[in-house]
């Protein structure tokens, strides 16, 4: 304990000395770490972050729903369901392959151009794009979780007279969810920072607000502020994810069942 604390201190000191001793340090410090600029830009950036949080909330809900549907479609058996299975598989292949940024541009600028919909704010289209992309990943996580549930569990449920839907809802999905919680939380952490990308559509979120403030002050400190805020936002989830993963590993070691 003492050794690790001491070694951390020494290490941090050395690092600081190396960076602060570099010839350009004074200029970088002024351009990126100006406390006055940080304070002045904070309210606007926080306001922007509120938009990110809203997008995060709606996207998370949307992703869980869409991903569950896709994953369920992919696990349907029988030739009758081939078109649905193929469609779901195509969806996950497509959206896991395309960079999020490109989906954002296409959805954000292309779909409104169809003029099917009333004018929607940029954040709305950003949310849709994030749901489209993340659902593909999360659907795969769900599918892996569903397939990891022992086939006998399904058989036992059907033997009791439960319908396919009841078996899925009551038996398979709860166990699948438990299996994939750590993986889901990891995806959530990734999504927490990717909601910052909606700024490319012009939505005034934390990143966009930082950009505006940066131009205003001729100083990059607002970006650092926004970055730190995103870290602060993600940190509890990251720690929680580690904790849950460790607990699940411990439980797996604890024993299996007949």
């Amino acid at each position, binding site marked *: 304990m003492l050794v690790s604390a001491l070694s951390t201190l020494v290490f941090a000191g050395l690092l600081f000395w190396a960076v602060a001793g570099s010839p350009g340090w004074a200029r970088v410090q002024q351009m990126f770490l100006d406390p006055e600029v940080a304070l002045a830009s904070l309210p606007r950036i926080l306001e922007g972050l509120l938009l990110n949080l809203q997008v995060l909330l709606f996207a998370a809900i949307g992703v869980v729903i869409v991903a569950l549907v896709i994953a369920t479609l992919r696990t349907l058996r029988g030739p009758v369901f081939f078109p649905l299975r193929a469609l779901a598989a195509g969806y996950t292949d497509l959206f896991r392959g395309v960079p999020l940024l490109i989906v954002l541009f296409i959805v954000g600028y292309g779909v409104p151009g169809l003029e099917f919909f009333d004018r929607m704010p940029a954040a709305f289209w950003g949310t849709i794009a994030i749901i489209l992309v993340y659902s593909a990943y999360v659907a795969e996580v769900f599918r892996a979780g569903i397939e990891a549930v*022992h086939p*006998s*569990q399904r*058989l*036992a*449920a*059907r*033997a*009791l*007279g*439960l*319908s396919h839907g*009841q078996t899925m809802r*009551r*038996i398979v999905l*709860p*166990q699948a969810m*438990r299996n994939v919680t750590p993986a889901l939380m990891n995806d959530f952490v990734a999504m927490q920072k990717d909601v910052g990308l909606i700024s490319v559509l012009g939505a005034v979120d934390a990143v966009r607000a930082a950009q505006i403030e940066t131009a205003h002050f001729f100083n990059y400190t607002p970006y650092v502020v926004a970055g730190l805020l995103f870290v602060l936002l993600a940190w509890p989830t990251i720690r929680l994810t580690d904790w849950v993963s460790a607990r699940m590993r411990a439980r797996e070691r604890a*024993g299996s*069942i*007949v």
Partner: protein
Amino acid sequence: MSDRLLELRGIRRSFGDHHVLRGVDLDVDAHEVVALIGASGSGKSTLLRTVNLLEPIDDGIIRLAGDDISDPRVDADGVRARIGAVFQHYNLFPHLRVLENVTLAARLVHRMPRAEADRRGRELLASIGLDGFAGAYPDRLSGGQQQRVAIVRAILTDPQLLLLDEVTSALDPELVGEVLALVRALADGGTTILMATHEMAFAREVADRVVFLDGGVVVEEGPAAQVLADPQEPRTREFLSRLL
């Protein structure tokens, strides 16, 4: 016969060009205990699964209490609700408490009010000495206790027929006895049972009739004591002699 409960006629089932069941005929009367024996891979599990429609058949007729349940238009979930089944392992749902496991079908399928389902569930758990575990998760139970819970879960809704597929074969030897004792008690109480088993001594003691499955057909059947002690068919003799 008026008390015929289950009637299988010409049941066929193949996986690709592997013909597992090649025309099985089998009857089970009400209150009868029938033991299905045969080598590993002879199709015992497959046959049991066809009875509660978990396995589609390629040909044949299955009648349960006179109803043709092999008719594709039949409500399969409804049929399964009339038949109890316990498999070799992974019967209990690990995310549900023991009492929830036991009452699940009663509540969801038979629409029994929760209070009544719970009362019946506790009664049955008490009858096997496990009422203390009602609120526990299944992984707290031994393998033998889990199988006994699976069996009372299967009978909670008074099924017409109980299917048991080698319910003791995944258990440590010292846990087999308690499970067999429960099956024996059910048999004595008049439950109609069709069971696949490797326990010949148990089959002789509890089963009214033994059916030997080989090559996808019933090769020999008869009163348990007679088939097991004095088999008539050479294949039955060979199978039984290899067990000793």
